[in-house]
């Protein structure tokens, strides 16, 4: 365990150090020509999550947040970096040991339509991981499936249903039940509520909160919606172009963001109260391509900070501690927007 990680009281269950994943650029038509520049999806990401806590990983499309979740479980092989779960180095494991470790870490995907097999009943989908990991078979598995469905708020009669017979919220509950079936300690939740309507979204968020308390689960909650993350996360990390640009305990990050990108993101979220309409910071331009990140600070071309200068264009600001537990990668983090 690294001593440099900002240590919350207990030692972290999940520890990520220097995670890097670059996707090679494709060649042109017919595989001829020079390959395009590599996409730096994840470019040196570090964080730790204490047992029973939730880290919210937020950012806009293409910032690399989903790739972080997938490389942690080795659904995608990272190029560099070290991921440990409960002290075990995930990267060092051979196939068999990795499969054993997968019992302890699971993932729930965003799209409850694409992530369930349309040709399997709910019972088959939930019983399969039980059989693979040698947890239960036959009547025993049937009982466990019924208990899982009840735990995620579905009537056990849903076991006979196919995915297409379920609503979006029900499917997402099945996705959660499937992840829970092997009794993991750690869940990667990759935009688990963004495809859902707001009334159903609240149901699923409440379910995730209840399950976390009941089973003492540790979550990596990946999302683009800062309001949702505020509701569920203990700590928040904000990504931009493959890097974490700010990381802090949630109350500190929302009360006093230190990076101008975090400030801008927060100010862009529409607030459902006509009386609370504030001056939005509208960022100019768009997110640059992760194949050609800007020099210096990756955010400098869009940065609204009045003190932005040549240094921002040349020197990449390191992620450094500004206040207790709050890290930001900005030269002017002491003087936030």
């Amino acid at each position, binding site marked *: 365990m690294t001593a440099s990680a900002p240590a919350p009281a207990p030692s972290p269950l999940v520890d990520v150090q220097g995670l890097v994943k670059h996707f090679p650029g494709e060649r042109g038509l017919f595989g001829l020509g020079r390959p395009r520049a590599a996409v730096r999806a994840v470019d040196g990401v570090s964080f730790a999550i204490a047992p029973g806590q939730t880290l919210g990983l937020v950012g806009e499309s293409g910032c690399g947040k989903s790739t972080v979740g997938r490389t942690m479980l080795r659904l995608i092989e990272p190029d560099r970096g070290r991921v440990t779960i409960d002290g075990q180095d995930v990267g060092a494991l051979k196939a068999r040991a990795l499969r054993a470790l997968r019992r302890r870490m699971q993932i729930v995907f965003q799209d409850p339509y694409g992530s369930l097999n349309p040709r399997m009943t709910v019972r088959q989908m939930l019983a399969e991981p039980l059989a693979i990991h040698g947890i239960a078979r036959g009547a025993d598995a049937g009982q466990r499936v019924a208990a899982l469905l009840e735990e995620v708020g579905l009537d056990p009669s849903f076991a006979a249903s196919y995915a297409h017979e379920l609503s979006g919220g029900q499917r997402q509950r099945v996705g959660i039940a499937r992840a829970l079936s092997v009794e993991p300690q750690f869940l990667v939740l990759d935009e688990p509520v963004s495809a859902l309507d707001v*009334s159903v979204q609240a149901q699923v968020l409440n379910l995730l909160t209840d399950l976390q308390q009941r089973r003492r689960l540790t979550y990596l909650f990946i999302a683009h919606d800062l309001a949702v993350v*505020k509701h569920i996360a203990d700590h928040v990390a904000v990504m931009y172009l493959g890097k974490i640009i700010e990381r802090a305990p949630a109350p500190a990050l929302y009360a006093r963001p230190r990076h101008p990108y975090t400030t801008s993101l927060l100010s862009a979220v529409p*607030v459902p109260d006509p009386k609370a309409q504030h001056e939005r910071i*509208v960022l100019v331009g768009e997110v640059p391509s992760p194949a050609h990140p800007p020099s210096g600070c990756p955010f400098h071309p869009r940065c609204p900070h009045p003190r932005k200068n040549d240094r921002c264009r040349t020197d990449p600001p390191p992620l450094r501690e500004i206040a207790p537990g709050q890290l930001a990668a900005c030269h002017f983090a002491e003087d936030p927007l």
Partner: protein
Amino acid sequence: MTEPLLRVRDLKTYFVTEHGSGTARAVDGVTFDVLPGETLGIVGESGCGKTVTSLSILRLIPEPPGHILPGSFIEFEGRNLLTLDPRELRAIRGNRIAMIFQEPMTSLNPVFTVGDQIAEAAIVHHQVSRRAARSRAIEMLRLVGIPDPDERVDHYPHQMSGGMRQRVMIAMALVCRPQLLIADEPTTALDVTIQAQILELIDRLQAELGMAVLLITHDLGIVAGSADRVVVMYAGQVVEQAPTATLFARPLHPYTEGLLASVPRLDAPPARARGRLRSIPGQVPAATAWPEGCRFHPRCPYAWDRCRAEEPPLLDAGGEPGTHAVRCWLLTDPRRRTPHP
């Protein structure tokens, strides 16, 4: 009192379902007005009928399986759009009423330059020359904030990002200076920083061009920031209608109330930020089988016998007459506004 620009009365748009399992009553008796220059927000969740309402206004409902029922009435600038012949309708569509859609990727034609696509409407509706249309296209690209419009005019949609394509869509919609812009989830596919740009752009253009906007969205935050008045839809019907400030300050329909309470809020006080959200139990019913009585009753914490048996009409909620209407029996018996255990 200002004469409405658009008057929708008892609009019913039904679809015959594929397996003959019944008729989906997607829009089932919708009534509202849009005043000149205002923004009317229509909010609701998937399947509430908000998109079908907007498509019905432009008569873009595929028939079959869909059809607009006799008795429905949509009046724009004094004419009933539902009885116009196709030629008359084409003169209005894309000209006096324009529409932008959620998905800027699929609503642009990939084989034409963005300049050609913007110019087309000007050529068709205003009979301008190609040259003049091209310079109108460049002017529109500048208006919607696309850098280097002289160069971008010759680009194809795939050469642009999602945010840029949505700007192009807006340029296309506005080239003929419409009186009414229908924006159906115009920012749902975009990231939050780009969404802020597009919303600001629509607000600015509305002020500059003096058009009315019918803003269709599921996001109550967007409505709070942009709309003058709000129509809340549930199960094919208008369930509440009010000026924006009134709706957020005093939501009266239990569905509106539940919807507002279930949104995770960035401005929640720290003590309330963590913890349980209020949610609406159950889910939106299917359009082939709306519940009897009040369509919200199976999910409503206040429902009693009357709600299960009798469908409530839109009732006036007081305040300035005709401004706040609610489809709920609670208005006749306010003492019942205490949730069942």
